[in-house]
Structures are given as C-alpha cells and as structure tokens.
C-alpha cells in the first residue's frame, strides 16, 4: 500500500512539474508575442532546468514516460479531425499531395545525408 501511494505521489509530482513548465512557456509566448507555442518554450526551460540540476532526471520519469509512450494514441483524434477539412483538402488535392510527398521525401534525405556525412 505504501509503495502504491508513493508511486502515485511521484507521478503527480512529475506531472505537476511538466504543467508548471508548460504554463511558464505559455507566459513567455503571451508576453513575447512570438509565433512559437508555449509548449516549445516549456520544453526548452525544462531542458535547461535538468541541465542545471535544478530538477533531477529521475524525478521526471513517471509522468514523462506516461506521456511519451502514449503520444501516438493522443494523435488519433487529431487525425480524425482531418474529417472537417475534407472539402478544403479535396479542392486542391493535387497540389497539396504532390508538394507534401515530394518535399517530405527530399527533407528526410537531405537532413539524413547531411548529418551522416558531417559526422563521419
């Protein structure tokens, strides 16, 4: 029983820290007016806090592994949301499909080759 409750407390602790950093990040977005989402600033701040040993890596594991290992599931409703844009997408489907597919292929190969060559 003790073990279960401390596991739960650890989860809550790490979840609270993630949320605090998310809202700090949102604050920066609101104040700066930059087109960068709060979650990205939150990520950078948390990364900084971990590097400064202000927050311990192991403290963060419970909530972060929950979030990261289930992230693909969270994207399901986002994907289903494409339903709303059916008309918009089908109107220009050829231009959208061609540029999305070709450009994604080119970016994958350019970045991959570039990094692999530079680090050889």
């Amino acid at each position: 029983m003790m073990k279960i409750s401390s596991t739960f407390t650890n989860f809550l602790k790490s979840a609270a820290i993630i949320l605090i950093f998310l809202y700090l990040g949102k604050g920066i977005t609101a104040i700066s007016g930059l087109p960068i989402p709060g979650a990205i600033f939150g990520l950078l701040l948390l990364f900084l806090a971990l590097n400064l040993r202000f927050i311990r890596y192991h403290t963060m594991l419970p909530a972060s592994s929950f979030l990261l290992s289930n992230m693909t599931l969270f994207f399901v409703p986002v994907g289903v949301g494409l339903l709303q844009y059916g008309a918009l997408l089908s109107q220009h489907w050829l231009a959208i499909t061609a540029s999305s597919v070709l450009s994604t292929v080119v970016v994958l190969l350019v970045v991959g080759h570039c990094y692999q060559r530079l680090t050889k």
Partner: protein
Amino acid sequence: MIYLWAIATIVVFLLLKKLLTPITSPLANPLLWSMSFFILLFSLSSLDYQQYKQANQLFIWLLEPAVVAFAIPLFNQVKQIKQQVAAILISCSAGVVVAMGSGLAVAYAFTSDKHLLLSLLPKSVTSPIAMAIANQTGGLAALSAAVVIAVGLLGALGGFTLLKWCNITNPQAQGLAMGCSAHAIGTAKAIETGKEEGAFSSLALVISGILTAILAPVFAWIIQGL
C-alpha cells in the same frame, strides 16, 4: 455518456495495435488505421462527429504537456548532442530551407493561388507553429493545420523505411530527419523506435520549428512577388 467516445478511441487504438504488431510493413500503423476507422465511421453513418470531438479534447490537451516532456529524452542524450552541435544546426537549417523551398516549388507547378502557397509553407513544423505562421503571412490556418497532420502521418508511416533504403542508418541522422520533416507525429514514431532516434527527433522538431518561424516571412515575401 459522452466520454464513451474517448474510451472508443483507446479501445480501437489498443485493439488495432495488438492486431498490427505482428505485421512488419510500415503501413501496419495503428494511428493510421484508428483514424481511418473513425473517419469512415463518421462519414458513412449519421453519428455525430462533434460529440466525438468534444469527448476527445482530453487527448488533444495532453499533446501540449507531451511536447514539454520531450525535454527528458533530450536531456538523456545531452552528451551526444553536445558533441555534434555544429552538424545538428547545419543539417536542420538545410532541412528547413529545403522544406519550404521544395514544397513551394512543387506546389507552384500546380497552382499560383497565393493563399494556398502560403498555407503550404509551414507544412513540416508542429501545428501550433504552423498555424501561427499561416496567420502571420496570410495563409489559411485551418488548411495549414490539416496539411501538417497529413505530412506528419506520411513521415511517420514511410520515413524510417525510406531512410533505410537510402542507406541512412545512423540513428541520430534518422531522428533528425524525422523531426525536421514530420514534427511531433514523426517524433512520436521516433521515440517508439529508439532512445537516440527519439531524442534527436525532439531536437530537430524544436530547432526546425524555430528556424521555420524566423525564415517563413522571407518565403512569404517571395510568394507575394510571384
């Protein structure tokens, strides 16, 4: 009652994941088939999509803290990252310029609709950045968001296979390529694939997102002059 739709998302996803695990094809992707299932369900039946959307807000809301949580795998690989700062920055910068440049060039071959071209510009970055850029440059934020999701799925489905075909086998290179081309959806896939892949994909998502926000106005200016 309405939360049954959230449970339906979980059940369908886990069931498909279990069914598809033994199949090695990249098309055996539980995300692809779960969303296809619900899209077909709402297109073919009279069930109310708005109820589904409302019930599943929880998952969409969890995506933001999940992005913050990318800091943890990133920190886990901080030594490897520090060793390769220059290579990472050069590769991501090349990726960002190529993403906008090639996307624009191909789309321009089919259309000269400036709103459409502007909406397609931020297709390789995470949707909140893409929507902010679209609003700023005069694109349609909703269209950008839709294209971003489609591009992310595309990268998650075929990215690793394509990279292996083309002899890009270094896990760090694979991760960076996924993050630059397929943002958070690609990163979710990279995290499932391995620690190094996941960390480098998170890193690429951040760097390419910020660089795209900085460089998009330049490309928008080019589009205005076309």
